[in-house]
């Protein structure tokens, strides 16, 4: 019996180490840049949030954003931003992805502004999830209004092959942020379908917005309403389908049981 135990004994004991980083194996540096897609999704309440930008980078990029309505998402905005922040013109080389870093910064700052709106939106829209999602999408789209003339440029930059993974990550983060702010609590596969559907709605609406000339972007917000209605209908029809299927299943089982119990 000892021999059998010895042969099947599996060491699930990890070798101790003083360095925590050894526990979770790190990717080698030359490969890690291809895997930036990996999101470290864990939000802590006791720890300060993880900021991917240093204070000087934030200063440069926020000044650069002020020049975007004039120059667009081009190197000139970055250079002007560095100048305004008090650095040399050539400091823009710090941003390895160039103008894409500027686009990402815009997405990052606008996404983080949504959390501040939560008390107001909760008060105004009450418990309705659909209405609150509409409000958050609307507020986020309004943030694009000042630079909408340059937004097609930004979308083109985001669509470059080397930028696509990070652009999708930003879209996913926005979708996750909105669902989190409406206090949605799902723990199974629905978590993914909800976020995917909202990401699709938001990105299609943003694209529509770039070619919308109506006053105050009314047509964009109507487009948004239509897209959200489609998703809600799909959601309710799937749950109706599931109810029907489970009812049919149990009814059939009961019927079979009653057949076998006869005679």
């Amino acid at each position, binding site marked *: 019996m000892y021999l059998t135990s*010895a042969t099947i004994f599996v060491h*699930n004991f*990890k070798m101790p180490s003083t360095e*925590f980083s050894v526990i979770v194996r790190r990717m080698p540096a030359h490969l890690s840049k291809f895997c930036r897609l990996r999101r470290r999704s864990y939000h*802590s309440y*006791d*720890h*300060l949030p993880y900021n991917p930008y240093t204070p000087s980078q934030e200063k440069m990029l926020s000044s650069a954003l002020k020049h975007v309505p004039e120059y667009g998402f081009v190197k000139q905005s970055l250079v002007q931003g560095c100048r305004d922040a008090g650095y040399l013109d050539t400091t823009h080389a710090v941003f390895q992805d160039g103008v894409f870093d500027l686009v990402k910064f815009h997405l990052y700052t606008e996404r983080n502004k949504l959390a501040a709106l939560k008390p107001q939106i909760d008060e105004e829209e009450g418990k309705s999830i659909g209405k609150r999602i509409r409000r958050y999408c609307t507020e986020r789209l309004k943030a694009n209004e000042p630079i909408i003339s340059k937004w097609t440029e930004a979308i083109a930059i985001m669509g470059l092959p080397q930028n696509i993974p990070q652009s999708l990550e930003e879209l996913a983060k926005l979708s996750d942020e909105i669902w989190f702010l409406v206090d949605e609590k799902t723990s*199974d596969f629905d978590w993914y379908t909800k976020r995917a559907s909202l990401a699709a709605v938001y990105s299609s609406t943003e694209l529509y917005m770039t070619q919308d000339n109506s006053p105050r972007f009314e047509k964009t917000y109507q487009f948004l309403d239509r897209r959200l209605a489609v998703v809600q209908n799909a959601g309710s029809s799937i749950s109706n389908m599931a109810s029907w299927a489970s009812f049919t299943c149990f009814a059939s089982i009961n019927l079979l049981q009653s057949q076998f119990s006869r005679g």
Partner: protein
Amino acid sequence: MSYKHMSIPILRSSRARVRAFAPAGCARLMEYNSTAAQSHDTANAKLPEKFPPLTPEARKFLSRLIRVDQAGELGADLIYAGQHFVFKRRMPSVAPLIQHMWDQEIRHHKAFDDLQNRHRVRPSLLSPVWKIAAYGLGVGTALMGKEAAMACTLAVETVIGGHYNNQLRDLVRILDEEVRTSTNGRASDELRALATTVSQFRDDELEHLDTAVENDAEKARPYMLLTETIKNGCRAAVWIAERL
């Protein structure tokens, strides 16, 4: 903290092997919780200072921890659900025992669901797969008999107990580092609470393991085939759930 003084005894019963490491986490946790109780100043309550941001490695570890534990509790919940479904009809005397263990698993599942929502961790992508597999395993082993069902519980709880132990070991290491680098010699409440939760759940799972052994788990035939298949299946599921 050195682990060299702890030898790994090769013991007959799998549960004794798991138990050998159980005290390690508990002693440290009691130490952290008592330090917290001493330094808590109720007369002069200020807003708690925030700790420096977690490293990407720590966040990756914590998100994996919550994801895999949530998937594990979902699996355990449904295994007992499957076993209860069969025993309620075939062997009603065993049903209350299964119901008791099931109730604890439901509690664990709910706790991890809450943690997953609170900390915005993404759940396992293969949740539907885990649901079907776990329910099928529960029903299948229950149809094989009471001993087989108990052997299934033994196998699953051995893997889960060892897995929680490993997580606890790493969590305690994170807590150590936080204490070392913090200004007031305390770790964050959030992480201490998480470690306490994992420790309590580990103890509950080991209790289920003991219950299974007391209820003729080792009399199941074929014992080795059944338990080792289930254990390896669980280990594979744990590895996949951590990543997917």
